[in-house]
């Protein structure tokens, strides 16, 4: 007789795996990628490919030769980091800078803390913020959407909507343009419609819950709405803010990163409110036109605190 397996219950498990969850997020990013290729052409493809490939390569090299462990690239999390990093970069960024960003994201942002699940900050954002501070000129030179073009570096450049609002110049695109992504900006953040499509897919696949994105949208809308109502001349409308910059991308794909967001639902709401408030403050009163990345990183740092103090309500809790 063959020997029986003895294992503790439960003896069945759900089909969902980490790899599958990561893949779902990657699939959810595809519409936004398509839109950005339509708007920015070859540049979008080059930046995305460079970022994804170098993230994978760095993770492989680190696990294989530095940590001498089994390579973990099969869990797809490095692909996701690469994609998200690319989505936060302008489409005409030189390849070298993209690789530096990928290095910082994977090696410093993720692997130095112990790999997937251990990093306190969203690796893609660590990479992006590093680039933003190190290469401010290249990182804020945005290509203008020009239809599918084969030009990479030499395209016509322009400012983002938020920069126009902040510095009071240029024609701010209409809300419809913002919705479709017909504006300057990082390659993944431009089309709100494509990102919302991804959001719907993630909700449908139960990869994320509504708590973080919806709370961010609502808080930004309310907070910016108050500012707008108080002084329409100084502040842009809440709708423009919702649809422009990295807000959609950040709220749906970056803030909801499993590793760096709080565990309980209540904690997620607090975390999301924090992100939204910090974003609105930076956008309206700070030195930078966009504050989403900073806001998420700041709240990432607060996450352990939130996890400690905001616990899920227990069944039959005795007060």
């Amino acid at each position, binding site marked *: 007789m063959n*020997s*029986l*397996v*003895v*294992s*503790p219950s439960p003896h069945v498990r759900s089909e969902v795996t980490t790899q599958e969850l990561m893949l779902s997020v990657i699939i959810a990013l595809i519409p936004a990628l398509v839109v950005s290729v339509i708007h920015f052409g070859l540049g979008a493809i080059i930046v995305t490919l460079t970022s994804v490939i170098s993230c994978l390569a760095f993770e492989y090299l680190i696990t294989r030769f530095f940590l001498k462990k089994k390579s973990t690239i099969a869990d797809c999390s490095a692909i996701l980091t690469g994609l998200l990093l690319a989505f936060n970069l302008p489409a005409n960024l030189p390849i070298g800078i993209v690789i530096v960003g990928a290095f910082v994201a994977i090696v410093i942002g993720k692997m130095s803390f112990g790999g997937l699940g251990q990093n306190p900050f969203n690796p893609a954002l660590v990479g992006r913020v590093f680039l933003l501070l190190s290469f401010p000129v290249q990182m804020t030179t945005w290509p203008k959407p020009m239809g599918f073009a084969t030009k990479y570096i030499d395209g016509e450049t322009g400012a983002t909507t938020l920069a126009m609002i902040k510095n009071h110049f240029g024609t701010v695109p209409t809300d419809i343009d913002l919705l479709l992504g017909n504006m300057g900006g990082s390659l993944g953040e431009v089309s709100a419609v494509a990102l919302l499509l991804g959001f719907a897919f993630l909700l449908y696949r139960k990869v994320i819950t509504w708590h973080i994105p919806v709370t961010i949208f609502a808080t930004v809308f309310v907070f910016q709405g108050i500012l707008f109502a108080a002084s329409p001349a100084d502040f842009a409308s809440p709708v423009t803010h919702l649809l422009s910059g990295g807000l959609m991308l950040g709220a749906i794909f970056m803030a909801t990163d499993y590793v760096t967001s709080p565990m309980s639902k209540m904690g997620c709401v607090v975390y999301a409110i924090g992100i939204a408030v910090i974003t609105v403050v930076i956008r309206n009163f700070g030195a930078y036109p966009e504050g989403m990345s900073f806001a998420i990183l700041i709240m990432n740092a607060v996450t352990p605190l939130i996890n400690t103090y905001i616990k899920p309500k227990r069944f039959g809790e005795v007060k």
Partner: protein
Amino acid sequence: MNEIVLYSVIALGVLGLVLAVVLYIVAQKFKVEEDPRIDQIVEMLPGANCGGCGFPGCRGLATALVTAPNIEGLRCPVSSNEVMQQIGVVLGQEIKAAAPKIAVVRCNGTCQNRPKTSKYDGAQSCAFAATLFAGETGCSYGCLGCGDCVAACNWGAISINNETGLPEVDQDKCGGCGACARSCPKGVIEIRNKGPKDRRIFVSCVNKDKGAVARKACTAACIGCGKCAKVCAFEAITIENNVAYIDYNKCRLCRKCAAECPTGAIHTPNFPPLPPKPAATPAEPKIATAEAPKVEVSEQSKTDNTNA
């Protein structure tokens, strides 16, 4: 321009001075008086914080040694007698010498001796596996092989041998702190005297089943036959619950019992081979393949004994 530099230097200098004074006052005021001997003893202790002494760490023991009115029984089980003597010198008291200890694994249920009847698939924790089931083999007393002892050891002295599936103690590294013995849910590991020239004799089995049942589950099990107890001239061996136990304080390392054991459950590490039959007692008895000839030889030596 020069003024700016000047003012900055002055401002910083004054700030540094003020803070230095504040720090000095605070440091004086809140100074913790501690016996300097504690630090001295901590230096002498191994510093692995293994907990073998019963205190939460080396510093705990050092504090206890310095403050306790009676240091009887307080010692680092891992440190050599020389080190303990030196500590005694620091304290101005004498610390009695004690026999060095070592952990021994009292299970010989290698993959070969103890055929598997089931396969465990769960968290790699003996403590948990022990609550789930009796073990992968017919023996419900032996080593589970998940390595809680390995995790408990602060010295890197114990490791699971992949071939036998059993933990092995590195006698050069093991100081006998007992962390592994405490971590073992089956009580398989015992702390025994290291013995002169690292020679020691012990029953490598804790199976309390009756002989036939134990033997069926594991060919190297102690079957509680009592032959060893009969042959022992020093009354060092007792049989309780179908398993033999050798009292290391009484044992004189004559090895008669090992020769007598029909299953080879009595282990005698670091002895030279017995003179008449070179293969009788292997130098490293933990190697499973050496078990079979041993049984044979033991019967021969039994006849030798009766003749003599």
